[in-house]
């Protein structure tokens, strides 16, 4: 447990809180988000592993700053929190911007779609146009 561990925990909590309290796009309730995160996680294992493998590391970690737990190809566990926070924050902001700056495919597709994500996508569209949630930052 070190400062990288602490920053990662803070980063992950802040991103989740931003989505749940401020942005409220509903992305965590969509299956597509979790499937995409699974795919991204798989590729992070490969890319991060190539950066951190102890046999010839490109990035070297201070042992006192992280948990000491290395997973897969010697990647510090914290890297996955860092990646989760970075990618999720980008996706949430992408969805927030969808209604205003999208090319129309996002919102119109969700309106005609009768699938499981329908309500959440509509929430997303509402959240992005609602001044009380979308503009507060």
């Amino acid at each position, binding site marked *: 447990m*070190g*400062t*990288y561990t602490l*920053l990662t925990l803070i*980063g992950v909590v802040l991103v989740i809180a931003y989505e749940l309290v401020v942005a409220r796009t509903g992305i965590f309730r969509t*299956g*597509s*988000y979790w*499937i*995409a995160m699974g*795919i*991204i996680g798989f*590729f992070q294992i490969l*890319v991060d592993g190539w950066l951190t493998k102890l046999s*010839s*590391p*490109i*990035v*070297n*970690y*201070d042992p006192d*700053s*992280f948990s000491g737990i290395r997973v897969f190809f010697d990647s510090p566990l914290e890297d996955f929190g*860092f*990646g989760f926070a*970075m*990618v999720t*924050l*980008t*996706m949430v*902001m*992408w969805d*927030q*911007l*969808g209604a205003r*700056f*999208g*090319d129309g*495919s996002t919102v119109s*597709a*969700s309106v005609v*779609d009768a*699938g499981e*994500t329908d309500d959440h*996508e509509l929430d997303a569209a509402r959240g992005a146009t609602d001044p009380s949630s979308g503009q507060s*930052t």
Partner: protein
Amino acid sequence: MGLCVLGTLPLELVLGARVYRQPRRLFLAMLVPLCVFVVWDVLAISWGHWTYTPRYVSGWDLPGSLPVEELVFFLVIPVCGLLTLETVRKLRGR
């Protein structure tokens, strides 16, 4: 990073993810995360959380001792993430 860009290009060109085709939305969505995580990286470098093996990086550093490769990383990875998300949504009928 080049492989990441090339590897995800078919998601846009073949599967129609429509991420690069919304440049304004893409730019705005990336702006805040880019700033946040570049600041995190600069702080982590200054606090010695991690260092870069000199022979594997170009040696071109941006202010804050940030290797130019890190900036590329923060530009490429979020785009790959959005391409993945939009492709999954498209294939599942959103």
